[in-house]
Structure formats: C-alpha cells, structure tokens
C-alpha cells in the first residue's frame, strides 16, 4: 500500500512540533512535505529576543536542522510560499507554481504582526518583530541610526526595546494604556517594572496614541520638492512619530508590537471558515474540511487564538495523535502563564490576576527590595497570580492554579512560597528554575540548588559529570540526575547540550556502554586487560565506575570462560552482604517464592541467637533480614545457614533478588493458578544470575494482584486462561508500572519467556540501568520483536540464559563458609 501524503504549510514551531510528535507516534506512516516561506529551517522564535539582545546566536536558535529533515525523510521547501489550496483535487501550489498533492493537510501559518493603519506605516524602517528578517533589520538599523521607537508596551514590545537598548540605540516605548503589560500585571507591579527598565535607560510614553509616522526630514524636504515638481511622493525612511496630542519625537526605526493577527489569508482563500483565526474543533481539524488540520497561532479554538508556545504544543500533540489515527486525544483549551525574557527582570503572571468583586487578594509588597506579589483567591482556591521581582514560586502557584488545589491549609504561609521541593524531584524541568537556592536537589548527598548553581558559575562547569564531581549532586542513587541537568541547563542556558549523542562509559575511555558491549562480543575480548587494551583505556586499570561495568559485561557474555574479578565488584557483592551505615552487614537467606516452614524458621532463629543479631525484619520481598552482623562473623553464620539448607538471597547484589508470590489457587478463593508454585519454579530458574542492576520478579494468582507484580522487573499475573507477562516496572523513588509484554498459556511458556527476557536485558542493558529505563530507552517494540515475535530467537535467548546459569548457581555463602576469600573477612590484629 502506498503511503499517505501529508503536507505541512508553515515551517514554524507549532507545525514542526506536530510532525515530531507524529514521527514518534507513527513513524513512516506518511510521505511528508513541508513548505515554509522563510529561508530557514525551523527555529525557536522565542529566542529572537535573546538573539536581538546579543545573548544568543541565530544558529543556537535552530530547532530542526536541514539534516534532521533529511534523516527523517521529510521533503523541505524553504523560501516557498503556498498561495493556493485546491481542496477538490487535493493539492497545494506555491506562488511560483510548485505543486504538492496531499491526503492530509496541516496548516500552521502562524500569525502576523499587526501594523497600525496610520499614515506613514508603509515607510521604510517601520517593522514588526516576528522573524529572523525583522531581527536582522533591527540589528542593521542599530548600527546606523540612533532613535528607536517601539509602539506597544506588551511582552514583545518590551523585549524588542530591551534588545535595541542593548544594541546601543536610544529607545522610547509608546504605550496606549495606563501602565505597561496591562494584560499581565496590575498597576503596582507594572510601576516597579517600569522603574527597573528606566534604570536600564529605556524611556516610556504612556497614554499616548500614535497619529502619524513622518518621513525623515531630509526626505520630507525631497518629498516637498517632488510635490512641487508634480511627481508622486516617494516612500522614504521614517523620521519621526507624531501623537494625537500633537507631540512629535524623532524615530529612525519604528517597531510595531501592538498585537498579532492570525495569518489566515491562505485558509480564507481556500474557503475554510475563519473567525479571528482558522476555526478548528477539539481534534484540531478545521470545521470545514476534515482532511485539513491546523495548529498554532493561526488557529481559533473555542473562540481563542493562543499566542504562546505551551498551548500550541498541546495542540500539536492532539493533532499528531489524530494524524497517527490513534484518535483518542482531545484538545480542550489551555490556561497560560507568562514570563518576560529580559535578563535581570523577573515577572510572572497567570489567571485572573486583577481580581474582581467575588475574589479576595493577598498582597506582599516591598518596594525597596523591588518585589511584589499578589495572589487572587476565590473559595480558597488560587485563581490568579501576579509576581514581580521574586518569581521562584511562580510555577508552584501556577500548578495550584491549574489543579484547583484547596489552599485553606496553608493560606497563612502561601505568600511566602514553597521553600521546599516536596515530594517529587521529577517535576517538569522549568520547575527547577522556580526553586529557591535552599531547595535540596540531591537528597542522598544533601546538596542544595544554591550550591550547585554556585559551583556551575564559579568553576565554569558544563557537564553533568563535572557537576557530580564537584558537588556530589546526583553522584549516588542518580534519581535526581534530571533535576541536576535542569539546574545545569537553567544556569548555563543555551550552551548546555542536554543529550550528547554519545556518552562515554566513564572518564577512562571514549567509548560508550554500547560500544564496549559490542566490542566484547565481536572482538571476542575475554579479560579485563584485553578490553582495556583493545579499546585504548586511558588508565592502566580503570576506575571504580568502569571496572564493575566491564566485569559484568564479561561475565554476562562469557559465563563459562570469564573468571569473575572480586576486586572489581562493589563491597556488597564482594562480601555477599549489604554494608550498613555503621559498617556492619545484613544477611538475607533465600526463601523460594517466599515460602518457608518450621524447620527453616527454627534454623534462622538459632542463627539469630547464636550471633546475637540485634534486629530481625521481614522484607518487602517476602524474606527475613538479619541486621547488624559483624563482618568477621559472616563466614561462620553462612556455614550454619548453609548446613540448614539455605543459599544466599543475593539481597545485596546487582542480581536476581526475589520472586514474590501471593497466596494463589491453592488457598485463595480468587486464585486462578498456582502462583506460589510457579513463583518457586521461577526462582529456581533464575536465582544466582548476575544482572545489570537489581532484578525482581513477582507472581500474582489473579488480577487483584496482591503480589504487586506490575511494579516488578518481570511480573506474572495469572488469569483463568493463562498468564499475563508484564515487564519493566519498579517501585522506588520513581514508580513505574510495567508494560504488558504478552499473554501465554502454560507454565513452560512462562519459564521460557522469563529466561529470554532476563537474558535480553542481561545482554543489552547498560550496567546499572534498571529494566524500567532500559525499556524506555530501547522501546517496548524492540523487546517484543526479540522476545515475543521471534520464536527461534526467544529459544536461543532462553538457552543462553540456562547455559549461563550452570556457572552462576553456585552458592557464594557456601564457598566462603568453606574458606574462599578468607582474607576478605579476617583482619590482621596487632596489640601495642
């Protein structure tokens, strides 16, 4: 079947975001052609303000490079304006006659700056602020002329004025309203802002209405000469602005920033219904023609045309969902918040910040410090906020506003902000920007945001590794890595590249995890030294990051040949116990599937008494944990446990930990299968196997799922007709629910899938990567292809798993009880 054709008109932020979402949702579904009338690939329009201010370059603002289009098989026509849509024959045509047929058409033509219809508006030097060409004109003007007048005291106008001022021009901002940013700020906040901007050298003319733009005097003179000579007046360059009250000010450049108008010319010419924007429904289809979708500033949805990217990106998601024929998403409108991108000025506003007779306001104002905060409440809910100066809590307020949080509980303190991170640490990145310096980012090492920011600034750090090394933030459990990256991105701004395409395994090598894994396999490298040599390690014997990783990769690839290197393992795995904070160890004997019996319990009780174990606890994985064991006692204790028939529970290792089971069909009135018995079999199959990270299984006897199988690395949920297999879940700081891998009918199949999935993870995941991030990185489709769809491949994976298990299922406790590695446990004693 030929692929469907999709044409995008408007190579801008909303349209391209839609394509990106579409490529994610349904790669290869369409042949895609993009038309844009600007000569550039898609760039970040928002960044035009910092580009104008000289804080960023145009290159940095590019979002999708030409290579990106090529790699994704998208045909890109830049500098081509689409002039016509033939809806009957389904093609579009550019003004120079190029045609493209479509099955679906996406219109994202953005908007145009509104140019006041005053005399002189067509003079040279009168421009809007919309695209790279406008910025070029402004930069050009700033190098030749002195006087700039910005008409419009809104966000765009102020950003333009700020940029032109920084480029050395003398800038006046003309505004018709009583105060600046009246759509974002109330009067007191706006006064503070104005003072601040005046301190930067900007001039403001409020309550002024522009009457006319006059040509520059020399040209005016020429103009008059022309009139006398009877020739038509040439349109020269602007020279002055005259207001309704008669005042005139000089102007060599006039930037109109009085608003935008949805760019619907093309849509209207094609007979699509427009009413202050191209009208679409909740699926982002035009109401006139269901084959035509539209997103972005050109659109009117439920009567609203948005002018900020956040809502447009939500629209893009919905449009992509329907273009991909998933057909479930609905766009229902957005609530927006604003910030002004003028360096050194912080303001935030959202919702009904002015308030009315039905609302009450909480206000905090410190004019001396230049801060102002107003929160508008209605029925104990936040309905609006307007903050100037100290905006760190802006996103926090915005979240509460959107979610309609009941704030009765903390009404008294809400004005003072959040002050602590609260639960997550996984919120959206911009939230980090709003955190106070005292917010703890890395819970493990107690590192606050202020410390990280100071280190980044003072030591000029650029990468996550550097931040880790200097602050220890994210150097431990790593769950705050995202937050640290966000702090980094926020602090160093556009210079920080979030995802370098290739990340070396550690500082000893250039090679990535995947390259090391591949080299071990393809070049048949079977010792650590061989790896270091073949891959040109920069250190003689690696470091504490790469040695455990390489040791694991070798072990996983060459189970029969490779000799495990104890000195390349973390202490827990070397001592076969969990080191506790006081240096003692804990001992967890294996209990198959969580089953035990009086004899085993008696043996555990005896051991606990004999070695004076201070605390005994039942673990979350249905095992018994003996805490506070001295390292020197470990071998003797293991001997006793081993004699009673126990093997190590590997509760300390990057290895198969436990198989948790529920009651199951044997006893439970809901049980559909023997979950306990199956759990025991699975544990006997998998115990002892080393993994990239810890690995947990569970088997539930019915969908009530008492064993919580859907937050395990591999979970089995029994149903009447068989077994559902779920993968990639975990509890912990960031809970992830499993994805359904497949459903099978027999216990034998469960065993095979269990082994095959585990082996694929063992062979492909990076060391210290749990199944959850691995599944997200490689995608469930990849795993299904290898484990579900390819029966022969699955059988081979299972065979390799079982082969490796021959060498892995040797009880480390028994070996050590019999004297192996004795030096590990015996100190040399000297008394003096």
């Amino acid at each position: 079947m030929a692929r469907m054709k999709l044409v995008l008109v408007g190579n801008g932020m909303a349209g391209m975001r839609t394509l990106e979402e579409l490529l994610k949702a349904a790669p290869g579904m369409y042949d895609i052609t993009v038309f844009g009338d600007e000569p550039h690939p898609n760039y970040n329009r928002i960044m035009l303000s910092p580009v104008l201010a000289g804080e960023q370059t145009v290159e940095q603002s590019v979002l999708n490079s030409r290579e990106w289009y090529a790699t994704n098989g998208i045909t890109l026509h830049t500098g081509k304006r689409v002039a016509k849509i033939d809806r009957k024959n389904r093609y579009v045509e550019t003004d120079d006659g190029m045609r493209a047929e479509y099955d679906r058409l996406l219109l994202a033509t953005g908007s145009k700056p509104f140019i006041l219809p005053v005399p002189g508006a067509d003079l040279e030097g009168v421009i809007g602020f919309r695209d790279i060409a406008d910025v070029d004109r402004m930069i050009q003007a700033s190098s030749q002329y002195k006087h700039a007048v910005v008409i419009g005291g809104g966000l765009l106008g102020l950003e333009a004025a700020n940029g032109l001022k920084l480029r050395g021009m003398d800038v006046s901002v003309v505004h018709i309203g009583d105060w600046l940013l009246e759509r974002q700020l109330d009067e007191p906040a706006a006064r503070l802002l104005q003072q601040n901007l005046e301190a930067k050298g900007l001039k403001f003319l409020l309550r002024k209405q522009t009457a006319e733009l006059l040509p520059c005097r020399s040209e005016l003179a020429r103009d008059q000469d022309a009139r006398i000579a009877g020739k038509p007046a040439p349109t020269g360059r602007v020279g002055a602005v005259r207001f309704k009250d008669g005042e005139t000010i000089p102007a060599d450049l006039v930037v109109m920033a009085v608003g935008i108008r949805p760019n619907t010319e093309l849509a209207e010419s094609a007979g699509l219904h427009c009413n202050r924007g191209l009208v679409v429904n909740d699926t982002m289809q035009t109401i006139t023609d269901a084959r035509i979708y539209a997103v972005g500033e050109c659109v009117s949805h439920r009567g609203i045309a948005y002018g900020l990217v956040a809502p447009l990106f939500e629209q893009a998601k919905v449009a992509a969902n329907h273009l991909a024929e998933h057909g479930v998403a609905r766009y229902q409108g957005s609530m927006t918040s604003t910030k002004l991108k003028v360096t050194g000025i912080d303001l935030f506003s959202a919702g009904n910040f002015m308030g009315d007779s039905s609302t009450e306001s909480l206000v905090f104002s410190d004019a001396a410090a230049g801060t102002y905060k107003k929160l508008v409440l209605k029925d104990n809910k936040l309905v609006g906020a307007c903050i100037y100066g100290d905006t760190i809590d802006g996103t926090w307020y915005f979240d509460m506003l959107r979610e309609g949080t009941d704030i009765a509980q903390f009404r008294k303190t809400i004005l003072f902000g959040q002050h602590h991170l609260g639960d997550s640490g996984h919120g959206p990145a911009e939230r980090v920007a709003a955190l106070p310096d005292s917010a703890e980012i890395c819970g493990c090492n107690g590192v606050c945001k202020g410390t990280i920011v100071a280190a980044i600034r003072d030591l000029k750090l650029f990468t996550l590794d550097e931040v880790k090394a200097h602050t220890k933030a994210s150097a431990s459990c790593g769950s705050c890595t995202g937050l640290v990256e966000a702090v980094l991105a926020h602090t160093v701004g556009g210079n920080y590249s979030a995802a370098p395409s290739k990340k070396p395994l550690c500082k000893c090598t250039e090679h990535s995890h995947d390259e090391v894994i591949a080299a071990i396999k393809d070049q048949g490298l079977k010792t650590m030294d061989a790896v270091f040599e073949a891959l040109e390690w920069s250190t003689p014997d690696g470091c504490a990051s790469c040695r455990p990783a390489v040791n694991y990769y070798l072990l996983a690839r060459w189970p029969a040949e490779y000799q495990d290197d104890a000195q390349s393992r973390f202490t827990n795995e070397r001592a076969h116990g969990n080191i506790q904070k006081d240096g003692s160890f804990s001992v967890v004997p294996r209990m198959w599937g969580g089953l035990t019996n009086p004899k085993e319990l008696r043996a555990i009780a005896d051991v606990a008494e004999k070695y004076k174990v201070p605390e005994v606890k039942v673990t979350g994985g249905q095992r018994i944990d003996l805490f506070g064991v001295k390292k020197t006692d470990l071998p003797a204790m293991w001997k006793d446990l081993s004699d009673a028939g126990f093997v190590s529970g590997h509760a300390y290792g990057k290895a198969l930990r436990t198989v948790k089971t529920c009651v199951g069909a044997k006893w439970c009135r809901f049980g559909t299968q023997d979950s306990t018995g199956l759990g025991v079999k699975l544990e006997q199959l998998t115990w002892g196997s080393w993994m990239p990270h810890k690995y947990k299984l569970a088997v539930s006897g019915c969908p009530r799922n008492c064993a919580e199988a859907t937050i395990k690395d591999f979970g089995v949920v029994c149903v009447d007709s068989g077994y559902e297999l779920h993968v990639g879940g975990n509890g912990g700081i960031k809970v992830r629910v499993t994805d359904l891998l497949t459903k099978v009918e027999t216990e034998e199949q469960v065993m095979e899938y269990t082994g095959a999935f585990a082996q694929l993870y063992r062979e492909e995941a990076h060391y210290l990567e749990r199944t959850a991030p691995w599944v997200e990185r490689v995608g469930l489709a990849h795993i299904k292809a290898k484990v579900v769809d390819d029966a022969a491949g699955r059988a081979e994976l299972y065979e390799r798993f079982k082969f490796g298990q021959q060498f892995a299922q040797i009880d480390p406790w028994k070996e050590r009880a019999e004297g192996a590695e004795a030096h590990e446990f015996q100190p040399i004693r000297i008394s003096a």
Partner: protein
Amino acid sequence: MNDWIAITHLDDIPRQGARVVELSHDDAVNRIALFRTAADEIYAVRDKCPHRGGPLSEGIVHGGQVTCPLHSWKIDLVTGEAVLPDKGCARTYATKVEDGQVFLKLA
C-alpha cells in the same frame, strides 16, 4: 614505636585489594587499610575516609587510588589526600616489602 613491624606476606593481600590491620592500643582500636595496587605497590592508610568515615579497605582500588564505598570519594594512596574537587586527608603510614614480606611502620 619507631620500628618496622612485619605484618603479612604480599601474597596474602589480594592484588587491587586490601587487608585490614587492627591495632589495639590502650583499649582503642585503630584500623589501618593495607592496599596492594595492580603494580604490586603496598600502601597503608587509616581505614577511615576523611569524608564521613567510610571503610576505605572496602573500596575499589585503581591506579594509585581507592574509591570509598560510601560516597565515592577518591583517596590518593600515597598521600592520603582526597582527589580534587574533594578536600580532606586520611593518615598514611610507611610500608616496605622485602622478599615478599610486608612491613609497616606506625610512627
């Protein structure tokens, strides 16, 4: 006590590993970690990380350094100093090896 004490044999310390020497002395116990590097050099460092007292003897030994098992500070075995950017110092002791016999000097 200015003398060399014969402690153990080179072969009894795992390469890229460590042994602990427990020194009891007026009821106090001082633990010294005796490291053997990949190049068979022997170093003695107090078994207490300058950060929060982690047992350095349990760390991974690489080059002339050990990485503490608790929070991954790197300690230089020759000087006992934490590797920058971390700052701190663990006490070191003189060692020598003669005919496979390892000696330690406590003063």
